[in-house]
């Protein structure tokens, strides 16, 4: 049987009423936990593992896949409305999405994010169906040296969020890198910057920092500016739905985001955050209105949202084709396979064809369900912004606190949240950009670990970054992205000058 017949067979499995019910439960639950910062799909699936003793494998995986995809949809909702990212992959969405909401375009931001997620999820799932073996062969060729080069390329994207002053932006980038280095070092097992606090040994969760800087910091800032009696309610402008212009500005970012997200998600050390950074950078560079970035550009929501959903599909590629868990959620799903006595590995597609194709079919169905669930919800969600500022921001604080406590039920995390929130207020007050902190915190440790892995493998030989074709290519791309625009600008001024000189004589 070819992939298409197998897929049809998978739909027959997934479209039974019981499995459709599980799919609905999963997507609804996933959306809900995506909304809460801290409570992610990995933890939720782990807590639901005992269900595997009761229901049949196909139903359990359809439920888990629904949760996984649903969390990516839900995470963007709070990013856009409340500047409180629910998942680390939706942090970038908050940058433009929340600005759009403040400009009265919350409906359009939510719509482009939901439709973009649907487009990316569907294309990504098609990718799993037809391209998985090819993609996985290619992804395995990436070694630590190549990942390091990829991180260097991703660091270039910081330039898109630096704000008005490069010095301030770079200062906060390094603050982020420092925060990322706290905890036990993977390569030596030694604690760094933990000051004897055992809770810091595993490092600081990036969600706590994002919620602290964005949500708590913002709340304190608003409170410090608040004059009683002047309730400023964010107006809704124009239609709730996307305008023709907004459609026109969204569809290309959706496709580009998908093209970045799916392959990087399929890489064993790729992850979901890096494609969102890259997508944001690409969209800013390609936009006809780059000046809108930082003030609510729809491309900056459409691209990263597509990228994170496509990467969620990408993560399933090594999991299903090789039995390799490359994210926390995939690892938990694999342990669910094991509790059914199924050993996920390279032979999974052959030995468990019904289960795997049922799962893939349910991903398609889940995507449609998520779109149907989310689009009508937009009208309800945007009403949330009509809440007067004191109540709204109090709500955000409660929400951020509960979500943070939910991560590990540790009071230390709550203290961290508010210390970082205070820092976020000061950064806002003195005009330091906050986004580079997050980028530094995610990329810094990844770059460091991959660099050291590469150096261990090459026995200390530096040239490995330039002699490996993949790594060399990516480094050249990074150099072009960094220096290209300047060289081009220089060349243009020279030409103009020459022309002027020629005109003078």
């Amino acid at each position, binding site marked *: 049987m070819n992939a298409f017949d197998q897929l049809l067979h998978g739909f027959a499995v997934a479209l039974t009423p019981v499995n459709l019910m599980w799919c609905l439960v999963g997507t609804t639950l996933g959306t809900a936990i995506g909304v809460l910062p801290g409570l992610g799909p990995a933890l939720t699936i782990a807590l639901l593992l005992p269900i595997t003793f009761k229901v049949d494998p196909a139903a359990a995986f359809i439920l888990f896949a629904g949760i996984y995809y649903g969390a990516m949809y839900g995470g963007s909702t709070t990013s856009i409305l409340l500047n409180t990212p629910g998942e680390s992959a939706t942090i970038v969405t908050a940058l433009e999405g929340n600005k759009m909401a403040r400009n009265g375009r919350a409906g359009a931001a939510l719509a482009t994010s939901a439709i973009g997620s649907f487009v990316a999820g569907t294309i990504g799932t098609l990718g799993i169906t037809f391209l998985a073996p090819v993609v996985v062969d290619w992804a395995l060729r990436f070694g*630590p040296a190549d990942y390091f080069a990829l991180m260097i390329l991703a660091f270039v994207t910081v330039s898109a969020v630096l704000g008005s002053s490069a010095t301030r932006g770079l200062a906060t980038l390094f603050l982020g890198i420092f925060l990322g280095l706290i905890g036990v070092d993977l*390569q030596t*097992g030694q604690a760094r910057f933990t000051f004897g606090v055992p809770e810091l040994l595993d490092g600081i969760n990036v969600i706590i920092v994002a919620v602290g800087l964005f949500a708590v910091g913002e709340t304190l800032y608003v409170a410090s500016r608040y004059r009683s009696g002047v309730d400023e309610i964010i107006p809704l402008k124009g239609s709730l739905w996307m305008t023709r212009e907004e459609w026109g500005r969204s569809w290309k970012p959706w496709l580009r985001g998908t093209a970045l997200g799916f392959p990087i998600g399929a890489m064993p050390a790729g992850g979901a955050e890096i494609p969102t950074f890259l997508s944001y950078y690409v969209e800013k560079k390609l936009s006809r209105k780059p000046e809108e970035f930082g003030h609510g550009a729809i491309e900056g929501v459409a691209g990263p949202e597509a990228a994170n959903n496509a990467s969620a599909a990408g993560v399933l590629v090594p999991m299903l084709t090789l039995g390799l868990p*490359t994210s926390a959620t995939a690892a938990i799903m694999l342990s669910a396979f094991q509790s059914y006595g199924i050993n996920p590995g*390279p*032979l999974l597609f052959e030995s468990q064809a019904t289960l795997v194709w049922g799962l893939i079919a349910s991903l398609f169905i889940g995507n449609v369900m998520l779109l149907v669930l989310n689009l009508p919800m937009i009208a309800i969600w945007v009403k949330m912004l009509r809440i007067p500022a004191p109540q709204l921001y109090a709500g955000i604080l409660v929400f951020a606190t509960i979500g943070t406590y939910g991560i590990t039920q540790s009071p230390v995390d709550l203290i961290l949240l508010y210390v970082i929130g205070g820092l976020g207020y000061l950064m806002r007050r003195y005009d330091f950009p906050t986004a580079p902190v997050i980028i530094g915190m995610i990329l810094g440790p990844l770059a460091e670990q991959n660099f050291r892995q590469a150096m*261990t493998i090459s026995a200390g030989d530096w040239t490995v970054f330039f002699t490996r074709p993949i790594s060399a290519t990516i480094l050249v791309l990074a150099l072009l992205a960094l220096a290209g625009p300047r060289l081009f600008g220089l060349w243009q001024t020279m030409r103009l000058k020459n022309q002027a000189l020629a005109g003078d004589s």
Partner: protein
Amino acid sequence: MLTRRELLATTVVAGAVQGLGLSFAQAQTLDMLKMFVPAAPGGGWDQTARSLEAALRATKAVNGVQITNVPGAGGAVGMPQFLNQWKGQGNALMVAGMVMVGALIANKSPFSLTQVTPIARLTGEFLALCVPAGSAFKSAKDFADALKADPTKVPVAGGSAGGSDHILLGMIAKAVGAQPAKVSYVAFSGGGPATAALLGSQVAAGISGYGEFGEQIKAGKLRVLAISADKRVDGIDAPTLKEQGIDVELFNWRGVFAPPGVNDAQRTAMIAVIEKLAASKEWAETCKRQDWTQITLTGADYGKFITEETARIGGILKELGLA
């Protein structure tokens, strides 16, 4: 170290002795068992706790089980909490294992597993030394020779530094006469990424729990050079390290501990409950399904084992330059 058969024998004897003296304790059903898991839901210790819960309920040894997860740093975050807040609670158990012994030492934690009350070692997973299918290494001896010649030229992938995978590599290096501090150990954030690096031939070899590699070996993508068990294992076509002249044996064991400060009656009663469980059909089935080797060891013998294991792991971590 005791062989598995000897271990089994001691368990049976110990069980019989305790069975005579404390038949009343065995007959009792625990009303509520509280389990402390110093790791996140989904990991090895959590699965051990949840499997224990299922088996204990099935054998009607307990009426209810309540599981608390305190994740972080290989158990180093949960340990102080178990020592202080759970002190003296006779109906409480913590699930922990070899990884925690190493994590506490490497993190320079002031605590050690010798401070809690040993109840029983339950399961173990042996590790496997694997190479990509196309590797020039055909046996553990080839690998050992290369390691002896120049340990820096043989990059080996595994889980986090100071964990069981790294410890095994250190022990192999020491056994073949290479300097453990010189080995090229490439730490990955878990078995999945480490296996990916191995499949892509980014490293020369990899060490992880056999289960992590099993399916890749079956599919012919990886080759197993040796396993770290004490003898050959049914259904696995791989020689042990010992057979190939490398005198190393390592189990990533998991067991249960009571809090400090429980009295003798509580301790013996808990040991009796766990011994009965370890001998049950339900537990044997669980272990088979999860690919865990049953290496039951209880009470005082387990306490002695913990002391020896702490010294052995502390020694090898020091030689690896991590402690």
